[in-house]
């Protein structure tokens, strides 16, 4: 069975027919070609497929595509500006070495973004708590924390500005 859904994806209005059994991950990667969202386990245990739906980080591998109807979806492809300017979190991950193989990176950055949008000044414990659903096998997490901390240290204002830019509808 298929259902027609309207939703917002990275600021763009979408209207499309989705099969009931599709996951959001399938929709993104295999129907829309947005392969920045990764599949690491398919069962919600690794966080590589994290995207942000209506401001909340979710595992797109367990989220039904039909359930995005009326919602606002942000994937890693929509985080940077149209001109390629990186979001402060992306920039910070680059500069502070929050990346090795990079496979957990999109999910890790989006989980971090959802955290900072909700709580711009999380403690170290709160960061660890919020990222516990994003496995990284390369870095030992240390530079990932450093990358997030650097953004927090930059201050709330700057983050707010960029958040608004990246979420503004472009169509």
């Amino acid at each position: 069975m298929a259902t027609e859904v309207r939703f917002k994806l990275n600021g763009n209005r979408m209207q499309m027919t989705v099969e009931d059994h599709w996951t959001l991950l399938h929709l993104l990667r295999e129907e829309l070609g947005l392969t920045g969202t990764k599949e690491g386990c398919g069962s919600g245990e690794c966080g590589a497929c994290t995207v942000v739906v209506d401001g909340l980080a979710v595992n797109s591998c367990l989220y039904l595509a039909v359930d995005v109807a009326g919602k606002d979806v942000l994937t890693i492809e929509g985080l940077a500006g149209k001109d390629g300017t990186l979001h402060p979190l992306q920039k910070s991950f680059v500069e502070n070495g929050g990346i090795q193989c990079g496979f957990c990176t999109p999910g890790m950055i989006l989980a971090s973004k959802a955290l900072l949008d909700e709580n711009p000044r999380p403690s170290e414990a709160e960061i660890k708590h919020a990222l516990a659903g994003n496995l990284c096998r390369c870095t030992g997490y240390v530079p990932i924390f450093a990358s997030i901390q650097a953004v927090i240290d930059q201050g709330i204002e700057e983050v707010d500005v960029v958040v608004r830019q990246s979420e503004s509808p472009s169509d």
Partner: protein
Amino acid sequence: MTLPINNGNEGGPPGIGVSIPRADAYMKVSGREKYASDYYGEDLVWCGVKRAGVPHVVIGEIHTRAASETPGVLAVLTHSDVRGTNRQGVLQKDQPVLADDKARHCGDAVALVIAEDRHSLNKALDLVSFDYELLPGVFDAEEALEEGAPILHENHPQGNLLLSGEYRTGAGASAMAECDVVVEGSFRTPRQEHAYLETEAGWAQVQDDGRLFIVCSTQTPFRDRSEVAEALGLDLHDVRIKAPYPGGAFGGKDGVTVQTLLGLAALNSGGRPVRMQWDREESFLAGTKRHPARLYYRLGAKRDGTLHCLDVHMVLDTGPYDHLGGVVLALGLEHAGGAYRVPHVNLKGKCVYTNNPVGGAFRGFGVPQVTAAIEQMIDMTAEKLQMDPLETRLRNAVRRGDKNSIGKTLVNSTGLRECLKALGEHPLWKSRAEWKAGAGAFKRRGAGVAALTHASGYGPVVPDVANAKVELTREGKFLIYSGVVDMGQGNATTNLQIAGSILCQPTDGMELVLPDTDRTLPSGSASASRCTYTFGNALIGAAENLKTRILQRAADLLMARSRDEIVLIPGGVRHLVSGKDLPLSVIAGFMDEAERISVHHFKAPTAPENFDAGPGIRMHGFPHTLFSYAAHLALVEVDELTGEITVCRYVAISDCGTVVNPQIYEQQIQGAVAQGIGFALCEDLVSTQGLILTQDFAGYVIPTAADVPEIDSVPVEIFEPSGPFGLKGVGEIAMNGPLPAISNAVADACGVRIFEYPMTPERVLAAIRDACKRISE
């Protein structure tokens, strides 16, 4: 692949010793990097594997009809569809691509299905069945060596013994009689899963010219090419393998995973592109693991703490296939005595076939297992002698010019003592007594150290070579052809740093070409702590050659007296005498293609010593000549009532030569320590009767963000003359430390030692209880 970000030195060439951001960072943070698992394409078909699901059977008829008749199925293939040898393996070709005679573990591939979509694929896979005759299985490496044990490979001359090694120095174990103290210990280390985030994946298609093109997540594109060609009966040159950045590998993609199956599918898909991606459960089932080890140690010392005699017996479980089991055994034997001077040594090791999951390469490669043992034996000796564990290590630690525990003379930089001394000066070590005294109710705290060594390269027989290629394009850009895969360790970036430093170019003036059997040159595997050492040396040669040619041509054009008057500057050259600049694009226009491409071959030095450790052991890499060193410190807190261990702080002090990129260096240390903490505390791929019981990340737990302590990485930079810019390998060594350091810390905290790993709370609590019982008796 330009970086629209600060490269650490805006517009200028990257320095050596500077943390320039990764070359791949921009693409990775923006989600645009294309991994092997991101290849789809027009007209795509999917393929997948029917796994045996039984650990040891004779395979009869394979029923494929129901599956082939499923709508959307293109083909169901079995061993009879394989035109080549149908065998793969790095050294021993003992692993079938598709099982023909027997299945030897649950993960053996029995049939390959090609279908229009995932849905029909899964439906068809469920419909494939096969007749079989159950054989008794063997699931314990020591039982597999007993008489009458079920045999896995009937034509293997030594039964279930894949490879054994035996090696003696001095008077061997008989010198134990001369020791004032002797300690004994037997240790069991677990089967560790790589758990890379990107499971085994790839894409393949037969191209218009008839050649097979495979894109896959691999550490070894060139070796894969040979394996695929041989197994499928193709000419080597009719296979092309391209290796994008893998989403993690750690040894688990050292060798063929999806490659041959994908190739076979592409040969049978009517020219359509084929995709395969193992799901997590399949990755656990069919991927390789760290070899579980049994280690039996006796260590003897003199009253003053001088080590005198070591007797080791080790048994590794390689599962049903060699893969790299023999090489892991050889490296384990070589490191069994750690980085100490021990005049009398007796080493025995066996690598054994069982019906368990396949053992293979995993960061550390046999060394984490033996280091777990030797570094606890040292503490046990120190305890018996009432000596300080750090002092005991310093007393015996190797120096340059010493013979190490296998009698190999250390001719390269040897910084273990410097690492140990730095650890002794570290504030966390110096303040450990106060820290321990601060433990709360029912908590005990302890500090533990481990001294580490790790060889780099392939050893004396298999040539450890790299072939670097650097090109100045007609447009005046440099192309750096990486022959060695960057699975996350960062060597692609250090390549740019090395080339950029020689050619005086900023990173955005150069472009990387990732490993591809058609474009880059064979440079060996991304493994063995060799990537930047071996390839970097080759790259220096290639870049220097090209630089000379450019300067010479520029000198001619600028009518300089000699090329010494010309220097490279970002994007061009400058004549120092006249102050005149020429852009590289102009110079490139005056060079023909042959001049613009520079190639350099480098072969890593090998040990001239010819040690006899038994047939095959030398072939498998015994001994090496270049070693990295480290000293680790773990501070742990143990809950006396639950047995739970918390690693509170961790310090890793490493001698891996010069640091080319501090950020990447630190990542390698911290990442390996985190994997080592998992190995020590929670990771164990549990199987009974060959069936894996921990099938997902809920059952097989790896450390999360909430489980890893602050990790302090301190480099001790000792210039290694044979290394590029003085560096040595840093990729693996830190993996060896956490288990023994943590176990030593637990012993320091509560006076009990755990001999079976991981150190789960129940094992710790049981040990605490046993100790209490012994005291009360």
